[in-house]
């Protein structure tokens, strides 16, 4: 079976959890950092035909250094296709071709809705955030959305201050009512403590597994809604040797992922 080395950091575990969600041949829309690392692990392990694209218009880039934005210069040389926003966001995403999208946000709620617009009241904000960018359309149109979040009662919320990006919105049936494409929506929240999956009936994020070092009780206590626990809840599988090897030796040779520790993903 798989070998599981012990010398990993939490962001590495999280990246491997994301990678395992990807199926061979998936078309994945990624931002910089975590999503790229996660999708690339899949490409270098069980899903070699994974294809990555960035919203800025790049498909199948071959960066020689880690990209620090979706417009990074290193995404240009060697890519298979470079167009513009209407190519990737229009032709590929709205066209229905994107299997997986990765998103993060300042707040994430139990229905997988994401806030990247404003903390506090929209008109008199405590903090003005960047806005949607590509997040809303990715949340609306990608078949499976993987959300990265810090697990605490500030970043997770019963209800976000502002729904920038749709998860299941108000719960069952809401996406359908708004005419969002069938079989789309968030599939997983990866936090630094656990994996939360969405109940097919209630559309609420439920505890699927807790990471090594955490526990069901700790996760429930850190979640600001009445977190349901899956019947088959278990400990998250730690990074596999081959996943870590791909991550460290082929994808992120400069240890960019350690930035996430500084951001609190511990």
């Amino acid at each position: 079976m798989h070998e599981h080395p012990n010398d990993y950091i939490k962001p590495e575990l999280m990246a491997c959890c994301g990678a395992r969600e990807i199926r061979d041949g998936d078309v994945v829309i990624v931002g910089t950092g975590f999503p790229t690392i996660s999708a690339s692990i899949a490409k270098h392990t069980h899903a070699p035909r994974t294809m990555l694209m960035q919203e800025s218009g790049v498909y199948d880039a071959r960066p020689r250094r880690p990209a620090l934005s979706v417009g990074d210069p290193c995404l240009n040389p060697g890519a298979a296709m470079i167009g513009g926003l209407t190519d990737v966001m229009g032709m590929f995403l709205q066209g229905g071709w994107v299997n997986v999208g990765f998103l993060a946000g300042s707040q994430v709620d139990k229905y997988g809705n994401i806030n990247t617009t404003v903390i506090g009241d929209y008109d008199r904000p405590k903090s003005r955030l960047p806005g949607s960018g590509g997040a809303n359309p990715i949340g609306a149109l990608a078949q499976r959305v993987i959300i990265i979040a810090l697990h605490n009662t500030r970043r997770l919320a019963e209800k976000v201050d502002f729904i920038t990006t749709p998860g299941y919105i108000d719960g069952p049936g809401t996406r359908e009512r708004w005419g969002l494409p069938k079989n789309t929506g968030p599939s997983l929240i990866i936090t630094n403590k656990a994996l939360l999956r969405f109940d097919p009936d209630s559309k609420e994020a439920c505890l699927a597994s807790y990471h090594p070092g955490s526990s069901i009780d700790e996760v429930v206590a850190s979640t600001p809604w009445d977190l349901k626990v899956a019947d088959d809840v278990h400990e998250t599988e730690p990074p596999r040797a081959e996943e870590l090897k791909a991550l460290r030796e082929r994808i992120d040779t400069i240890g960019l992922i350690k930035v996430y520790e500084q951001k609190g993903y511990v």
Partner: protein
Amino acid sequence: MSKVTTMKQAIEAHVHDGDFVYIGGYICRPPFAAIHEIIRQRRKDLTITRSNATDDFDLLIGAGVVKRFIASFLSLGFYGLGRCYRRSIEKGIPHKIEVEEYSNLSLPMMLMAGAMGMPFVPVKDMVGTDMMKVKSFMGDGKYKVIDSPFDGTPTLLVPALNPDVGIIHVQQADENGNAQMWGIGGDCKHGANASKKVIVSCERIVSREVIGKDPSRTIVPGFKVAAVVEEPFGAHPGYTPGFYDVDFPFGSLYQQASNTVEGFEAFLEEWVFGLEDRAAYTQHYVERFGYAAFKGLQAGFDYGYPVSYSY
């Protein structure tokens, strides 16, 4: 008839107080020389737009030239939130700008609609979210939801945008304004073509014959262009594929400076008001950071293949 001019003259002649201005680029090819000149000429009450905005839009907002922003996103990316953008909205410094919120799907489609003479365009995002609930200066014109006359499905329509002027920075253009670009495009092609006239900033002016050697690279035809300005290093601190890299240390410098109003004002004084044009800016860059830093930004040589259009 040549449209080649200086940036000073191009902005004087074609960007007016109160104008609606499209500004292309996203780290890749932001027309910073034009942006600095707009600030230098102390334009006011501009409405600005593009999908994915960053330090360039933050600078315009902090400098006070902006009244309204048709937005999808603004942050300094790696360097965090846009400081001037936050100060404007949270504290009204230098004044509170009005923001109309869209996404990186809707906004480029609205520019595409504007470029193609479509009055509006259907999009599949935004529905069901608070993006629908906030409306600013566009009011009821921000969007409409109709039942599709084809199948009854509720369908979101967003309006076409037609800016008064579009400003882009590209690798090369001829003196008539035929503008050629390669690499990450963002919404440049549609944004420029949606505009009533275009200012083309470019790394190098080339002959009409060079343009004709590879016409599939042209994104804006000369007849739409009002002014052409040769501005080498014109996208710095952003980058231009094939010419120079993004300047990460300068991004950090801007982050630090814009952390405070005083720092931001000093930055403006040093890098905008205190320099008369992009040549002076580049000289100041070399003097301040050294030729080695300047040289370090220059792109490597990694040329592709020429093609023939012959028959």
